[in-house]
Structures are given as C-alpha cells and as structure tokens.
C-alpha cells in the first residue's frame, strides 16, 4: 500500500482493502462526528454490519492499535464517475471518547487516514419478506439505515428504534424516518421521544408488527436485553457487538467472546472475523460481568481444575 493507492485482495477469502483514504467530509451530528472517507476498495465490497479499522496517527505515533467503526453507509465507485461520490466513499460516525477517537474526529478534509475494510460478517438478510425491527443504541444506529434500505428492497417491513441517554446522543433520527416504515425514539432523560430504554418499547413493536427478526447494534447490556425480548416473542435476534480489538483482522485473538456453535458447543470466537454480528441467542451473555468476560466452564478447551 502506497500513497493513495489501495490494495484489494479480491481473489482471496473475505476480500478486504487496505487504503490511504482522504477525508472529504466531516461534520458534527449531535455528540458525534460524521466522517466521509474516499476508500473505494472498502466501498465496493462492504455490506451492512461490516466495519472498518482505522490507524491512529502516522508511523511515529505511540498508538499502534487500530480503532474499529461500523460502516454507516458506502457509495460505491462506478456510475458515470462525474460526481464526487463516484470516488467510492465510506461514511462512519465517531464518538470521541479517548485518544484514538479524538485524533480521528479531528481530521480535516484533505487529511488522510489509513483504513482497512470491510471487515467482519454482515447482518444476514432474510430470504423471504419478513417484518424486522432494527434497534440502535447511541451511535449504534449508524449501520442500521443502510440495513433498513437493504431489507426494504427485499420487501421487508422495517421499524426502527433509536435509543440514547439524551437527545444529542441519538444518531440519525431524520434518516430513520426516511429509511424505515416506522420510527420509535427513546431517551433515558426524556429529552426526545419516550422516556426510558429501548427495551421498554421493543416488546410492543415486535407484537404490533409481528416481527420475525430483530437487529441490534449498541452497548452489550442492550444487545442482551434485545436478545431476551426477541426470544420471548419468538423472533430471531442478530446483534453487532463491540469487543476491544487489537487488530480487527483476526490475527491477535484479543476480541474473543463465548459463542455457541452449530454443534451446540461454546467456543471463544473472534468477534472481528466471526462477528461482529452474531445470533443473539448464540452469545453466552452469562459470561459477561462488570467489564470482564470469563471463559464458561463448558467451553471447548476451558481451563480444567489441575491444569489442561
């Protein structure tokens, strides 16, 4: 990878591009920064639910590890090539919470960032028209509008539920109205929509729409309750998780979590390559507690008393 060139390993499993992307747009949206990057490789390959991993700083940066962000939207290359969007862009929505995200959100148009993507598994789409509810917490709503459009193209009825602590931490309320058949807003403090959590309104919406699929993206606690509610109503939950990731490409084993496989056995799987989207009922939520996740005793290769 040199200069603005991108390498796309299209022929190999899980095609992914590594490119130096120019920032062509950046704007504040509530508590977040919305960035548009010229990353044709990622733009042409991505599907809703996948993510990109950005490097922080230049080669002399003290910050070595990449930061991951859900892809909000892509505009693939192609078309007549005359519009700016013909360049192939990827959009992300970033909450500045630490040094890496502060650096990323301070990039200006014309600056470049080193981007790898698309990474991970996309949200699976139902083959038949199904009624779907898409639930986003905070910036977790970012990938849902694109997903909503893909679902509606397949004839699905799509309801969106956006929740956040307060109005400024909601993302994409207007976009939700454009991309979905119905939108419900919740805030913890009642500054917008219903006062309360998404889990307060979700059961009613699933029932009203007879939803068969619930998609979720947001904090772990929220994903867990979405899973429980979906199960209670006979719907399938597909959730996109955010585990701490050192590489994002599957080589470091830092991002693992316990997930039940098709053989019924629990394994510590890499959320960057086998996720970030998992079936909610496959995730071993019982292993997460207070910011730690332990290895369940029944997991494959779990430590046994007296060693291995």
């Amino acid at each position, binding site marked *: *990878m040199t200069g603005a060139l991108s*390498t796309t*390993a299209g022929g*190999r*499993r*899980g*095609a*992914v591009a*590594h490119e130096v992307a120019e920032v062509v747009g950046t704007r504040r949206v509530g508590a977040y920064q919305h960035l548009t990057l010229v990353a044709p490789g990622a733009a042409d390959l991505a599907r809703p639910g996948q993510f990109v991993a950005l*490097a922080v700083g230049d*080669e002399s940066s*003290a*910050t*070595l*590890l*990449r930061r991951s962000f859900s892809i909000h939207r892509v505009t693939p290359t192609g078309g007549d090539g005359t519009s700016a969007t013909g360049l192939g862009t990827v959009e992300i929505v970033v909450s500045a919470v630490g040094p890496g995200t502060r650096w990323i959100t301070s990039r200006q148009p014309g600056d470049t960032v*080193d981007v*790898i993507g698309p990474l991970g598994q996309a949200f699976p789409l139902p083959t038949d028209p199904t009624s779907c509810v898409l639930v986003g917490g905070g910036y977790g709503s970012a990938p849902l509008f694109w997903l909503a459009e893909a679902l509606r193209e397949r004839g699905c009825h799509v309801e969106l539920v956006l929740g956040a602590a307060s109005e400024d931490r909601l993302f994409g309320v207007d976009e939700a109205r454009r991309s979905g058949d119905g939108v419900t807003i919740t805030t913890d403090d009642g500054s917008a929509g219903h006062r309360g959590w998404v889990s307060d309104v979700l059961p009613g919406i699933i029932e009203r729409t007879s939803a068969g699929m619930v998609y979720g993206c947001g904090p772990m606690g929220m994903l867990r309750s979405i899973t429980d509610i979906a199960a209670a109503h006979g719907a399938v939950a597909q959730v996109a998780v955010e*585990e*701490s990731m*050192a*590489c994002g*490409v*599957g*080589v*470091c*084993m*830092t*991002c*693992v*979590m316990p997930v039940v496989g098709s053989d019924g056995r629990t*394994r*510590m799987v890499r959320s960057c*390559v086998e996720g970030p989207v998992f079936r909610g009922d496959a995730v071993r939520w019982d*292993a997460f507690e207070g*910011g*730690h*996740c*332990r*290895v369940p005793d029944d*997991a*494959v*290769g*779990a*430590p046994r008393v007296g*060693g*291995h």
Partner: protein
Amino acid sequence: MVDMSVTLAGQRLRNPLMTASGCAANGKELHRFFDVAELGAFVTKSVMAEPRSGRGTPRMAETPSGMLNSIGLQGPGIKAFVEEDLPWLASVGARVLPSIAGSSSEEYAEVASVLAASEAFGAAVGVEVNISCPNVANRGLVFACDPVASSTVISLVRETLPPRVPVFAKLSPDVTDITAIAAACLDAGADGLTMINTLLGMVIDTDRMRPQLGGVTGGLSGPGIRPVAVRAVWQVRRAMLEGVMPTVPIIGVGGVRTGRDALELVAAGASAIQVGTATFNDPAAPVRVLDELTGLLESKGFASFGDAVGVAHQR
C-alpha cells in the same frame, strides 16, 4: 540486487523475514493482504497438545508504543493444527516455522511428535519452542526463567524431532542473565535461538481501579521494547563471539515496525527477523519490512543480507 537468502541451521530461506508467533494466526487471515509464501518463513501461533480456550477478556491493553496481551495460548490443539492449519500453509507454498508450547516438558515432546509424524511436516523449516509457558510442575514458574527447566524441554523436543529439523528455543527477556538460559538451551541441543518473547507487564484500569486485563498481568510487546530485544540479541551474539557458547543463528524479534528497526537487530546479530505487534497496525508489515530492509542494505552497499548480520560487533 542484494542477495536476501539466508541459511538457518541448514535450512535455506528465500529471505529472513518471518511473522512472530501469535501475531499472525495461522496464515489464512494475512493471506488476504499478501502472499504468505513470500515470507522467509511463517511462524504459527504456539500450539499445545489439547484445544485451549485461553483466558477471559479483556485480553489486551494499549500502552505507549506497545501493548499488553494475555491471550493464554488459545488454540485448536496439535491434532487440528496438523490436520488443518499446516496443510493449508503447505498448500499455498509457505515455508513454516511451527511454534509449540506445553505445560510440562512431556507435553512439549508430545506436541513435537504429533507434528513430526504429520503429513504436511515437510513444509516446516524448523520448530520454534516457546518456553515462555508456565511450568505446572514448578508452581507455574515459566520454563524460560530457569536454565534447568529450559534445557529439559529442549532436549526432549530435540530427541523427538528428526535431526534435519532445526530446533529454535524462544527466550524470555524476563531473566537476570539471558546468556545463561541461551547457553543451557544450546547445551540441550537447540540449533538456534529466537529472542525475545514479551516482557511481563501490567496496566491498571484507572476508571475501575483494578487490573485492566482479565489475566491481571500480560506480555508487553511493540516498538517500546525494541531496545531490550536489541540488547538481548547483542549480549548473546557477543557471548558466541567470545566463545562462551557455540555460534548458532539468532532470530530477532521485538518491536520491529520498519526496515530500519529490523536492521538494528540484524546488526546486533540476528540472522532472521520476526514482525509481531506491528502487524496489528499494518497487516502487510512483514513483507513491507522485507522491502524496506532490502532497500536499506542495497543503499549501504551490502552484497548480501548475510554480510550485515552482526556487523555492529566489528565497529
């Protein structure tokens, strides 16, 4: 053109660049970014006898110019490794330096024997023995911290493997005198050394006021530790030059991010270079470092890579 080929303990490699164990998984993931057969050798994640789930999370903490990890040797076990991973690497033409681990010296030998008996073992250019594992028989004391334990593991593995296959002992820097451990490993039959594994470190999560890693302590890696790796390679190479121990090839690892970084280890005495943590920043780092190193050697007028190995000892 600089001749970048290198012969490590009898095995000829097209170039000296390798992945570092545990920083490249077992090949498929990085093969999306570059052809893993371009490497001098692909070093796989240390594999143990049985499948292992590793530790709970968080398993990592970022540190200035580095990171801490506590993976806990998660892996599929040697059986799955020889049935799936090694054949895949062989199928794409990669030369492989499998890394093996154990909780007892017998486990190392067991892993080595399954490996040696496996069909795709022809792709191996040697075996790297990760002795930075807790020894359950000795209150969890890491093998590499004790010359006797190190030498027991190495001689068992050496006996188990066919003579044509060189054995590399991978040393820990967390010792008072790394030359003593190196000498013990060579005495026990190691054909080469890999230096260094991570340093034992720890990060406190100051929000929660508790250790950040699920495993409490972890291994420190990345550019911040490079001076320790250069020093370790220098000291052991020096001891070889002084005749304190036989001269064998050293594989240098620790904090290499650029060709210049690799050249530091080479000049200190390394005959091959592994790129670990830098791969998390740039998945193509091992081949990029190869290009950069080749360019640097060329600009300095070296005819072959071998001429640069250990030159800093002569100036």
